[in-house]
């Protein structure tokens, strides 16, 4: 930052593909990712003369459900519109979108603000449109694949309510979480199922008028969103600090070079000539329809976080970590139902298990350990059959093989030794073998206690009950025998 303080103002436009079976306006499969080029194409996708679009009800219902989850109003009357422009990924010469009468509008989502407090980001609108084809650029040509053309696409436009790259990042994460909870989109940015653009301006703090707005397009990962905004804020502040003016441009983000570049100037901005789509009839959305869709909404992340805080005594941050994915939240709750110690389950889930999932790069649904198996493991710890360290290695084994904890403990003879007589013999042996350490301990070097613990554990191959060992060691070391 320079001498002055600056305020950054960010609005986001997010596109998310909806998980329907068929496309938005025809019966072609919407599952295009692994399909050979131009195999999910019909006269509607190709805009052949006479072909007529028909609205996919599932896409409309998914959009209304998203609208409800984003606290939006649902339009009683909604119309599709033509957005006209020529581009080879769009054979009709226009994209069917929505303009004046979107399906949903005026909503909000809550994120954690820069000050750590909850903050609302307003949603201007969420409307339905169709995705375009894909272009591959090679050797002076562009190759066109229309499989993606016509896949239902939800556009979510926020107000310019975000004030940092972190807030923008959290907003995006929140949207993804909500879309996934609803099951309406994979919202996978790396695979292009969720795409994002940011509008951004910077002004000296206290200034009333807004700074010049730039648009950053094609932000295709969470990292790109954060890095591009951070870079662009720095760039603009540097210009202002030198007394310059920011140019109103559309920017792209070069991930490798780590910088933005000018994509197209506003002078050439498209003239879209929107008008109501004459091939489609308006939608009249009744209260009954909306209410029947509201009834299908799952418990949403905010509500779940609140409930986890109240029911399980988790902090907001902890509840948030669990609730960010619906499948994780469900796993957690099933585990707590089987072993009703919420904190203990939280500890193991977010520690050992999350570490494993990260390293293996798999979702929790692909994990071999069931909630019930973790519950069994924790009962083995609680009843003293194994100690916590042994439990960790048993859990590793469970994650790798999917075996039940009891099976692993029995097969490997890992059951903890709590028998005092047996452990006393080991403790005596260790003390007899290390007279120097015993002397130094008694002279005041109390830190050696941990070293003695370690010796006993090693001698018992980690199976000794730590509490018993501690008690026995204390007796022997503090006493004079």
């Amino acid at each position, binding site marked *: 930052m320079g001498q002055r303080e600056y305020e950054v103002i960010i609005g986001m436009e997010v596109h998310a593909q909806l998980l329907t079976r068929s496309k938005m306006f025809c*019966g072609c499969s919407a599952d295009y990712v692994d399909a050979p080029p*131009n195999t999910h194409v019909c006269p509607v996708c190709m805009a052949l003369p006479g072909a007529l679009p028909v609205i996919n009800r599932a896409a409309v219902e998914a959009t209304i459900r998203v609208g409800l989850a984003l606290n939006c109003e649902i339009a009683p009357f909604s119309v599709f519109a033509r957005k006209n422009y020529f581009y080879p990924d769009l054979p009709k010469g226009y994209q069917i979108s929505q303009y004046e009468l979107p399906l949903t509008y005026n909503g909000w989502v809550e994120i954690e603000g820069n000050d750590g407090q909850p903050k609302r980001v307003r949603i201007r609108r969420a409307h339905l449109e169709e995705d375009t084809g*894909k272009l591959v650029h090679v050797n002076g040509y562009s190759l*066109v694949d229309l499989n993606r053309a016509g896949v239902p696409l939800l556009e979510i436009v926020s107000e310019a309510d975000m004030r940092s790259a972190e807030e923008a990042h959290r907003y995006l994460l929140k949207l993804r979480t909500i879309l996934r909870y609803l099951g309406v989109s994979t919202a996978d940015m790396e695979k292009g199922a969720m795409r994002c653009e940011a509008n951004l301006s910077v002004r000296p703090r206290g200034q009333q008028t807004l700074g010049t707005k730039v648009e950053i397009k*094609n932000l295709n990962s969470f990292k790109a969103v954060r890095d591009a905004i951070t870079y662009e804020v720095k760039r603009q502040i540097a210009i202002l600090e030198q007394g310059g003016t920011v140019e109103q441009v559309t920017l792209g983000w070069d991930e490798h070079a780590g910088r933005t570049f000018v994509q197209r100037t506003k002078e050439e901005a498209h003239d879209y000539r929107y008008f109501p789509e004459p091939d489609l009839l308006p939608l009249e959305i009744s209260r009954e329809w909306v209410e029947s869709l509201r009834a299908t909404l799952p418990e949403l992340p905010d509500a779940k976080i609140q409930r986890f805080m109240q029911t399980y005594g988790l902090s907001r941050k902890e509840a948030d970590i669990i609730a960010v994915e619906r499948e994780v939240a469900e796993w957690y709750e099933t585990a707590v139902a089987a072993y009703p110690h919420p904190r203990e389950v939280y500890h193991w889930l977010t520690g050992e298990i999350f570490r494993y999932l990260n390293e293996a790069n798999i979702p929790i649904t692909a994990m071999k350990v069931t909630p019930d198996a973790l519950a069994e493991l924790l009962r083995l710890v609680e009843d003293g059959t194994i100690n916590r360290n042994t439990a960790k290695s048993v859990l590793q084994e469970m994650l790798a093989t999917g075996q039940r904890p009891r099976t692993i403990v029995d097969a490997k003879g890992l059951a903890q030794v709590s028998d005092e007589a047996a452990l006393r013999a080991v403790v005596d042996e260790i003390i007899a073998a290390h007279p120097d350490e015993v002397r130094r301990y008694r002279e005041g070097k109390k830190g050696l206690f941990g070293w003695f613990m370690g010796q006993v554990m090693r001698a018992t191959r980690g199976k000794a009950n730590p509490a018993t060992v501690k008690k026995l060691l204390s007796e022997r070391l503090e006493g004079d025998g």
Partner: protein
Amino acid sequence: MALSREDVEHVAWLARLALTEEEIERFREHLSAILEYARMLEEVDISDVSPTATVLPMRNVMRDDEVRPSLPRDVVLANAPDTYEGYFRVQAVLDTEDEEG
């Protein structure tokens, strides 16, 4: 209502049409005459008519989310001037990336 030469050039650009000098002038006159004709509508009293997106009385015409067969690819590409390994091939488009919103 007379269109300017710039109006015609702009409309031609939006339609990706290259017009000769002679055509620009000819279409300027044609388009101006069409607009002039349509202007008659401005004389209609619409004070008690609300705007509409359609004149048809039907609403909520939708289909179930069911997959139906697509066309065979050789049919899809049959009329294409140029193809390459299952793709339509066109002159390189340079001005923007492939994402439009």
